[in-house]
Every structure is written in C-alpha cells, then in structure tokens.
C-alpha cells in the first residue's frame, strides 16, 4: 500500500480493492475519523429507535395527538406565531453547523486563529440552542402543565416522547459545546502545531481532530433535522 490516493481504483472497483487488500480497509482515513463515523452510525440507530417508537405510539393511540403547531406556538405582541421558537432554534443550529464547516476548512489550512475563532462561534451557537431549549422546557412544564405521564392537550404519550427525544438531543448538544470549547482552547494555544500532548489521552494530535469534532457536530444538526420534521412538523 502506501501509494497516493490518485493511483488507487475508484468507485465500486475501489470498494472491492480496499476491502480485499487485507491490511487497511479505509485508505488514508485517520483511525479517529473512522471510529467517530462508526459511533455516529450507532447513534443513528439510537435516535431511529426513539423516532420509530414515536411513530408507533402516535399511530396506535386512540386519543387525539396534540397539535404541535399550537403547543409550541409563541405569542408575539398578542398574536400567536406557530413554532416560532423552534424555527429560530433550527436556524441557530444550522448556522453553528456552517461555522463548524468553516472551522474545519481553516483547520486543514493550518490557520490557527481563524479556526479557533470559528470553533468558538460554533460553541456559542450550540450554547444558544441549549439555552432556548431550556426556555422551551420551562414554558411547557411550568405554564402549559405538560408532564411525561399526562398533558392537557391530548394523548398522554406526547409528554414522555417530547422530553425523551428533545432531552437526548439536548444532551448531545451540551456535550458537543463542552468539547468545542476544549478544542477551541487547544487550537488557540497551538497544540496542533507544536504537537503538545493532550491532557487526557497524552497523545499528540493534529488538525484532523477538528474534522472529527466537526463530524459529531454536524451529526447533532442532522438529528435535529429529523426531530424537527417528525416531532414538530408532522
């Protein structure tokens, strides 16, 4: 092996070539990136299980399913706008995904300062998202009286699925924000240029770590796309 990527066959021929080479299936893919992808695949199944059970509960209940458009409406100057907060949250998360993509680009160009800046912007976007989610939860629990076992709008299952699905996603965002802040600090300090060893793994790292971080963050955004569609819009 150890030849450049351009010399290797591509497409379906490349697939059989890589898998039959008996050494490294994922050519030039850092192990961390491959592992992150495998983790994200398993996480995909976890979120799929949540959303599929949401479908099952909603399709099998004889009670009326609450109208998300009304439950999550926000009144602005006396008029009720449906799903306003959720729409803003969606745009904030997409924007943080955009800044993350740009941070990865600057990382690979070894542009230390811009990379750290965009990582920080991404973290701020994520923290804003979690903040708005906390606001939404407070509103629903305190003012609307939604509980995991019952709610005033209809089918009792609604509450448990809302807290489970958005809570699990919010946890992912929160963990992402923590790691984004750590990575931003490491990048700003120049750990990836000087080869300083990490405080936890004691291993040298490089800007590939930014892309691996990016994969996780884009995945969190990806999951929100599906939650937005199936929980809020459907």
């Amino acid at each position: 092996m150890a030849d450049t990527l351009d010399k290797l066959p591509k497409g379906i021929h490349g697939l059989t070539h890589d898998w039959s080479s008996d050494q490294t299936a994922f050519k030039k893919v850092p192990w961390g990136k491959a592992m992150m992808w495998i983790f994200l695949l398993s996480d995909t199944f976890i979120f799929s299980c949540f959303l599929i059970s949401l479908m099952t509960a909603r399709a099998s209940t004889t009670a009326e399913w609450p109208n998300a458009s009304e439950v999550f409406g926000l009144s602005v100057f006396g008029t009720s706008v449906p799903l306003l907060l959720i729409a803003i949250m969606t745009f904030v998360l997409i924007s943080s995904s955009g800044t993350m993509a740009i941070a990865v680009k600057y990382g690979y160009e070894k542009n230390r300062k811009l990379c750290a800046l965009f990582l920080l912007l991404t973290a701020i976007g994520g923290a804003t998202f979690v903040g708005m989610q906390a606001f939404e939860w407070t509103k629903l629990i305190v003012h609307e009286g939604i509980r995991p076992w019952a709610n005033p709008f209809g089918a009792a299952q609604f509450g448990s699925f809302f807290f489970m699905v958005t809570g699990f996603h919010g946890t992912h965002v929160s963990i992402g924000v923590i790691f984004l802040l750590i990575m931003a600090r490491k990048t700003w300090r120049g750990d990836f240029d000087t080869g300083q060893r990490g405080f936890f793994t004691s291993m040298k790292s490089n800007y590939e770590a930014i892309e691996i971080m990016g994969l996780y963050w884009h995945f969190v955004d990806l999951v929100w796309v599906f939650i937005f569609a199936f929980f809020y819009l459907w």
Partner: protein
Amino acid sequence: MAQEKQQEVKTHKLGVYMWIWGLLFVFSFFSYMVDYLNFEGLLRWTLIVFFMFSKAALIMAIFMHLFWERWAIVNVLLWPMSFILVFIGIMVAESEYTFFTRLFYFIVET
C-alpha cells in the same frame, strides 16, 4: 494565506460551504412555511420528507465530506441504515394491529 507547502489534505473553497449554508436556510424556511401555511394531508407529508432528506443529504455530502470520501467507508456507513427502513415497516404493521385491538376492546368493554 497561501500555505500550499506540505499540504496532503485538499480543502475546498469557502464559497462551497456558504452555498450549502444558504441552501439549508432556504430548505428550513420552506419546511417551516409548510406548517405556517397549514398545508394538510399528502402534500404536507411529501414536502416535509422532501425538505428533510434534502437537508440531510446536503449536510452529509458536503459538511461531513462524504462526497469526497472513498466508497469503502461511504458504503459501510450508508448500507446499515437500510435496516431502519425494515424496522419502520415492522413497526407500522405492529402499530396498526395495536390500534385495531385497542379500538376493538375499548368498544367491547364499554
């Protein structure tokens, strides 16, 4: 910054990401409009699913760089997801059965 020295990884133009970012905004806005304009029935579900998969495809292909990855890893990631479709199929059948039994016994017992 012109740093093309020991560059093994190729990076993409900033414009690519800005375009995708813009498209994601547009798709999100349209899917919000589906709710805002109160589209109902088949039209609503078709539009929601269309915008959802468009956004997911853009994020995975461009932001997560899958478009530029080798097929060996792309196939490992995408094929297992087809099991989700199988699971959805099973649970649709299951939920219809549960719904039927609930209707049946609730009526019998009242």
